[in-house]
Each structure stands twice: as structure tokens, then as C-alpha cells.
């Protein structure tokens, strides 16, 4: 037997904003025709959340469904619920041209929180993080310095960042540097 461990075991760093690795998070990639009514029904009944519109995230309790591309969703949920969710979705979508995979342990999840969260993200990604361009439950895939990452405005002043597990240490280090006291931007 083994116990699942997250990429960086919940490490955090406090500067003018706070970086935290979120520990174990469940994540499922679903690819298919997002305009399909049956698929929408299966996702809503399994997660409680509707299929999100372009670059949006819908939530229901501790489940969130994120729009990743015109044919891709990322379902976020408790780590120990992921396998059962994959089974439920696979069963519900049998016969459809879809792909449902548990990618929990292939990703690292971080939060960037505090007044300076938008400024920190804007240091590292070529994205407009102004409130009117990036509101609550907006999601934007981009790059974080040198690696691909997804940015989700999960709460006021909190940005949840999803990146590949293989670059988790890099993500934590570059975020930690960007929140260092004395490097405040004060733009957003």
C-alpha cells in the first residue's frame, strides 16, 4: 500500500501575498463535445455544476468544473472522490466519443492570496489581470514565467494556479520570489 502525496506537501510562503501549495487535490480531465446535451446532463448530475461557458468555472459545493478549451473540461474535487467520479462519468457517457482521465497526481495546485495576488500573477504571465478583464470564476490558461499554467480567480483576492507536477518546485520558487517583501507593485 502507499499513501498519495502532493507535489510539495502543502508548503507555503508569505510575502506581500501568500503562496500555498494546496496539498492533495482531485482533478479529472474530460474531453468531448461540450455542446452535446447528453454530456451536459451527465456532468451536471455527477458534479452538481453546469458545463461552464468559455473561460469560466462553475462550482457546486467542493466540486468545480473549468473550461479549458472548446472540447476540454477540468473537474476539480476532493482527491479521494476522483476515481469514483471517473467511474460515474465513464458509465454515464458510455457510447459517446469522450475521454475521462484522473489526472490528480499529474498536477500541482497552488493558491496565490492576499491584496497583491493580481499583481504577483501579472508579474509572471502575459495576461490582463485587471478586475474588469479577469473576474471571479474566470479561468485563463497561459504561462507562468517559463511553464504552462492555468489561472482561476477562485475567490476575491485568491487566484488558484494549476500546473504540471513535474514543474511544481519551479512554480513555487518563482511565485515565492514574486511575493517577496519590497517587490510590491501596487497596480491592481
Amino acid at each position, binding site marked *: 500500500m502507499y499513501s498519495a502525496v502532493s507535489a510539495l506537501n502543502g508548503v507555503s510562503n508569505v510575502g506581500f501575498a501568500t503562496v500555498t501549495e494546496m496539498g492533495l487535490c482531485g482533478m479529472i480531465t474530460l474531453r468531448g463535445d461540450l455542446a452535446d446535451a447528453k454530456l451536459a446532463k451527465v456532468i451536471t448530475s455527477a458534479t452538481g455544476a453546469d458545463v461552464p461557458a*468559455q*473561460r469560466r468555472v462553475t462550482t457546486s459545493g467542493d466540486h468545480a468544473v473549468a473550461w479549458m*478549451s*472548446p472540447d476540454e473540461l477540468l473537474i476539480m474535487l476532493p482527491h479521494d472522490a476522483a476515481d469514483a467520479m471517473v467511474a460515474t462519468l465513464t458509465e454515464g457517457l458510455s457510447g459517446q466519443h469522450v475521454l475521462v482521465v484522473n489526472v490528480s497526481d499529474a498536477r500541482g495546485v497552488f493558491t496565490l492570496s492576499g491584496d497583491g495576488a493580481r499583481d504577483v500573477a501579472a508579474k509572471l504571465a*502575459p*495576461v490582463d489581470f485587471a478586475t474588469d478583464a479577469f473576474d471571479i470564476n474566470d479561468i485563463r*490558461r*497561459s504561462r507562468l514565467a517559463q511553464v*504552462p499554467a492555468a489561472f482561476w480567480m477562485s475567490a476575491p483576492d485568491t487566484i488558484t494556479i494549476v500546473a504540471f507536477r513535474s514543474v511544481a518546485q519551479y512554480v513555487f520558487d518563482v511565485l515565492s520570489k514574486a511575493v517577496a517583501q519590497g517587490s510590491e507593485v501596487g497596480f491592481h
Partner: protein
Amino acid sequence: MLILNCPYCGVSADETELTAGGEAHLTLATVGDDDAAFEAYLFMRKNPRGVHFERWRHANGCGKWFHAARCTMTLEVFGTYSAQTSEPPQEIIDSIKARRPDWALSDWMGTGKGDAV
């Protein structure tokens, strides 16, 4: 900095989010084609000074391939459009002609009179 609007996820992506995919609308050479056709498909590329059609991929983003029409001299972008087409759509042609009245698609295709400018 080149900025292209990704037609799949709708964001204005700067070139650091994108991967260049080279000339658009190539004709694939396949079984039964002669050497000249394969040479053209594999090696022969346009290098216009002016209007050009290219493939780009939103690599640090939604991951989709798309097409872009832009000017190689000024970096002016005339528009981006779906990857699921073998020729530029009319609205892209129209927006190029609005800015370059003397330009014709046949110039770019190599069947026209002169250089595409």
C-alpha cells in the same frame, strides 16, 4: 510584440503564448504523387513581403491550432480564423482588401502578376 486573437478560446495571446506553425494552406502530397509534388509539399515555402497566411498554435493556452493573416512587414494582423479550412474565409479576404486594396489572393497563391505587397 505580435498579438493574435485565438479563435478557439477568444483571448488576445501575445507571441510568448504561441508556437509558429509556418505557412498555411499547404497541399499534402501523398501516395501516387510525383517527386515534384513531394518537393513542393516538403520544402517549397512562400516568403512574401507583405500579406501572409500562417498556422499558429495557442500552445501556452487552449492548445488549439488556428490560422492567422498578417503583414510580414508591418506586423499588422488582418484576422485569425479556424484551422478547419483549406483557404482563407471571405471575411479575412475582405479585411485584407480594406487595408491593401491592390492585393489579391492570387498574388499570395503564386498565380498572380507580381509580388504580394
